[in-house]
């Protein structure tokens, strides 16, 4: 009974963490930019948080603030050149950035290279995670409909037209990249203090794909879509695990298969979430 509760509890925690990560991808998607740097941002946040906790007595709120702030600061010099790139080029450049971050941690002896940091005190609980998610949701909900929010929509729909309406598109895109980096870093900090450990292997390309899948499946037309997607894709494999193993699937491939099939089905038949990505070819 107790085991069941613990399993259930960690599921709830991961829904929250994954929800934050999906929102971090949504932050750039909602102005039409496919940035895949977020696993890298997450790593920076996770390592920053873990190092502060391991080497100081800073209160947890300060640790989380630093975890969010560090990748946000990195996002500024990254974004300035990279956001000039369009479509797939932005995606590729940010994939490259994410992998460079991962390699940096693999090669950094101070954080034990590929082994990563272990025995991080568990300081994040369910309520910290969900409160963070609530704050992020509130922030994004209030952006919608504001002058800033309409500008983002305009950029997503037609960047050139938006510029001639007086919208500084670079500044807006940069702001959202920085916000996304902050959210990813926050999620990284929370996860590090929930699972006791950080290791570079957890922040590879596969991780950012997972975030993207959750955001897209939930739908990026509304700010709560990504969180719904994260919840759905975090919980569903657990619910269906039994059925999967009865069909002769091992849990790992089964989860992958589900993710892939659901993502494909959503893109082909439920493009609502993707309508928001509509862009004209330059």
């Amino acid at each position, binding site marked *: 009974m107790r085991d069941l509760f613990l399993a259930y509890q960690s599921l709830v925690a991961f829904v929250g963490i994954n929800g934050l990560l999906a929102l971090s991808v949504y932050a750039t998607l909602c102005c039409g930019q496919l940035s895949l740097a977020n696993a890298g941002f997450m790593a920076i946040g996770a390592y920053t948080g873990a190092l502060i906790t391991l080497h100081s007595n800073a209160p947890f709120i300060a640790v989380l603030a630093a975890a969010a702030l560090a990748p946000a600061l990195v996002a500024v010099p990254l974004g300035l050149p990279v956001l000039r790139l369009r479509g797939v080029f932005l995606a590729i450049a940010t994939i490259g950035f994410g992998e460079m971050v991962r390699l940096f941690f693999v090669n950094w002896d101070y954080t034990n290279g590929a082994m990563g940091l272990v025995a991080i005190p568990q300081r994040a609980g369910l309520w910290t995670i969900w409160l963070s998610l609530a704050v992020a949701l*509130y*922030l994004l909900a*209030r*952006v919608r*409909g*504001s*002058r*800033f929010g*309409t*500008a983002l*929509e*305009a950029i997503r*729909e*037609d960047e*050139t*037209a*938006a*510029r*001639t*309406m*007086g*919208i*500084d*598109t670079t500044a807006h895109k940069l702001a959202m990249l920085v916000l996304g980096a902050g959210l990813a870093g926050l999620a990284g900090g929370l996860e590090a203090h929930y699972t006791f450990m950080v290791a570079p292997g957890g922040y590879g390309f596969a991780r950012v794909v997972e975030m993207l899948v959750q955001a897209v499946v939930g739908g990026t037309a509304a700010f709560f879509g990504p969180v719904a997607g994260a919840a759905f894709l975090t919980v569903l494999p657990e619910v269906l695990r039994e059925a999967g193993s009865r069909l002769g699937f091992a849990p790992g491939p089964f989860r992958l298969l589900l993710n892939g099939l659901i993502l494909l089905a959503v893109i082909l038949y439920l493009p609502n979430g993707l*309508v*928001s990505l*509509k862009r*004209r070819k330059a």
Partner: protein
Amino acid sequence: MLSLGQVSKAFGGVRAVDGASFEVEKGEVHGLIGPNGAGKTTLLNLISGLSQPTGGAISLDGARIDGLPAHRIAAKGIARTYQNIRLFAGLSAADNVVVGQYLQRRAPLWRRLLLLPSARREEREALRAAEETLARVGLRGRAHERAVNLSYGEQRRVEIARALAAQPRVLLLDEPTAGMSAPEADAVARLVREVAREGCAVLLIEHNVKLVMALCDRITVLNFGQVIARGSPSEVAKEPVVIEAYLGGA
């Protein structure tokens, strides 16, 4: 008000605009005509900052604006429409116009984050103003239709409304009546006249020669990127080079 001095734009070896000079005065409707490929749209892109001239100067009230990024030029009071309509397709007509108000709105995000009533008031006001602007182009009833679902002529009018929402000092219109029925085009022409009377400088690219002759105070004729004639409609119509360019180009 808006003045172009020896403006040129070369793409590779091709000079799309070649030393064009003219001025658009406050309250004037200024026609820009010429055969297809004469460089008219390129010139509009240069003025609005979507591309940079390779030579010459563009100034607004005596201050150089060429070289500035497009959003800064817009902030100086230059708004435009596009030949191949560039509405925000997924947004409603009203929301398109609300984006047009971007430079006019004063609504810091922090007020919204704190749930201040003033923020909500400002938003309602923006929407109401947008509906009013749409009424000016005869689309009051279509405000909440998504832009993609509007007819071609309606989309053109939403674009004009979106440009007007910025309360521009200079309005650049790229074939605003293309694809419109005659009554629709007349309504647009009346509106353009009215906007000019309110003190806006209007630069208008138009293929409908009858409409241009009736509507414009002055006309500049481009061919192969060069100004080949300028003056009042009746003067321009008499120029042999113009007749030749049009007949030769056709």
